[in-house]
């Protein structure tokens, strides 16, 4: 990943990417768009590049756009017919079938109520139809998916969600040294945490939220602060 900070604005023609494209086949990620023979940015933010040939714009966003295979946290909004309506922070609400849970049958329905939190996977997402969720994998097992109980839940930007989901994320690692906790992060910018006590959970949630503004260099500082808070 290139570290040079190159901010692009929507509508800007990005010749740097076009130059690379002359030599080899490239992949345009989110925020970049091909218009005839030119590459144009459709979102504002730093232009990112990963070897060998992927480009994308890492813009700050809070509105989730569903994509197939994403792990997300949703809130049950209502029961309707044989599906639950789930709010996943996208423009449209998603649906999940009664049968999309482990060991669920027509007779044995899962007991979910409005307000419950669900950790689920997006089964299909297209601009024209309602996104559909599942809480089982292809073998019919739930794995880590399903109802999230107790704990605390809050919303953040999509960027922070992605930051935490990155492989060996320094923040979560540093927090682990301070206290034991459970966490579920949805790419839709929703985070569920659970620690032993309310005070610990509050501290943890605040520490994670403060990462929103912090750069990578400040992560250690935030985590140290958390330790002080918990001891006090």
């Amino acid at each position, binding site marked *: 990943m290139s570290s040079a900070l190159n901010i692009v604005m929507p509508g800007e023609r990005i010749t740097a990417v076009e130059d690379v494209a002359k030599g080899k086949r490239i992949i345009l990620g989110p925020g970049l768009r091909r218009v005839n023979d030119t590459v144009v940015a459709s979102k504002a933010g730093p232009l990112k590049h990963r070897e060998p040939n992927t480009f994308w714009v890492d813009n700050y966003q809070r509105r989730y756009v569903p994509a197939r295979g994403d792990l997300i946290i949703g*809130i049950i909004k209502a029961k309707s017919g044989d599906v639950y309506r789930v709010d996943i922070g996208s423009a449209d609400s998603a649906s999940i079938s009664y049968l999309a849970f482990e060991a669920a049958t027509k007779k044995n329905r899962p007991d979910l*109520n409005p*307000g*419950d*939190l669900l950790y689920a996977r997006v089964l299909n997402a297209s601009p024209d139809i309602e996104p559909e969720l599942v809480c089982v994998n292809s073998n019919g097992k739930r794995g880590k998916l399903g109802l999230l109980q107790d704990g*605390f839940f809050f*919303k953040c930007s999509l960027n922070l969600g992605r930051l935490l989901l990155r492989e060996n994320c320094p923040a979560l690692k540093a927090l682990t040294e301070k206290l034991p906790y459970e966490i579920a992060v949805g790419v839709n*910018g929703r985070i569920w945490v659970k620690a032993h006590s*309310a005070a610990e959970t*509050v501290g943890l949630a605040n520490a994670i939220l403060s990462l929103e503004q912090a750069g990578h260099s400040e992560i250690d500082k935030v985590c140290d602060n958390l330790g002080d808070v918990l001891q006090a």
Partner: protein
Amino acid sequence: MFMNANLFEPGKSKPERVFVQSAAKQNTRFDGRKTSEFRDVKLNFGADWGTVTVSMGDTMVLAQVSYDIGTPTSARPNEGTLHLNVDIKGVSYLDEAQATYDQRSLTLNSLLERTFRSSRCLDLESLCIAVEQHVWCVRVDINVLNHDGNLYDASTIATLAALMHFRRPDVSYIDDQIRTYSERERELMPLLFLHYPVSVTYCVYKSTPQPLVDPTLLEENAADSIIVLSFNSYQELCTLNAGGTAPTNVRTIMQCAHSAARRSKALVQFVRKALELDMEKRQQSKHVAGLIDLLDGSLSKFSFKRLMEQEQPMEVDAVQPSQASRAESEQKPEKMTIEEQSQAGQKPAVKDDSSWLPEGNDVTQEQQNTEQIVKENAAKNTKATKSKPNRGKNKAGKKQAAAKKQNQSDSEEEATHII
């Protein structure tokens, strides 16, 4: 960074509610405040007279006063009018359900109407130019810019500050002709107040008897009931808005009322002080903040914590000169003792506040000859039976308030006064 920028508001999911409930029980709040701790109130005056922004944490409200010459209503031909208009559309993205948004703005509107109009805090007769023909119509537009809980307090403070800051031009009425004097000809005139009301909001949870003051949106949404009390600077109750499902007994409401009365007084003092500083600023330099400066964080704002810190020692001196606050200074000795008691520690203070309660309950129980009723029922009955016979007393009671407060067994009477 605003936590509520997503479609679904905080505090709507079950884990959040359960968590806030249990945290309230353990005296923990998400932003690290104590149950009885307020967020800092920041006040900012705009270039125009009567333009104010108030922010409490992430909550931000803009109030703007405008005026017009119109005709009075036939019912009150010698009074000007005060119109309050709440616009909550700025945060309508908060919930997709139209119902919530409508209900929210209706509640807010009715609270403001009752606090400022029904309590007759403005001397509307002074706004009359010619009886039955011309009066000043004062209009306050309240714009909610961001909602992180406690819109009630933010908007009442903003409205009060805007009305106090507002200046209208002088007019004369000769031979059926209105003449409006410009600022150069005659000095602008402030509005005349009879009293200064401000509201204080509490959240009540079923899990704990201790109410949370100045709730954030998360706490507000997770709350079982919300109590809004408006007091004026003379510690008279103007509005009581108690809704929701949590069983609230008289003890809780009284406890809230006591601290709300103190808080309101401090808030009014804060607004006065901020106004004074603003006047100084205006006299010194021509440059005053525009709208962008108003909303921007860069401008130095009048912060409640900072201003009132200095205020504490000179509180007595500052208050006494004003003629209107005579009643206040009479109450002073008694109130100081309450404050001392509450400073001595939370538990004793709570006990002290409620020491009258068992008596109160006994009285009502005797009156009704009912036994074995649960405490909550008792509380409800207290309200129901006492409110009517004492209504006449209430009006007279206001003036006697100072006298009443002097003896220690006052609280019971005060309860009837408030309820």
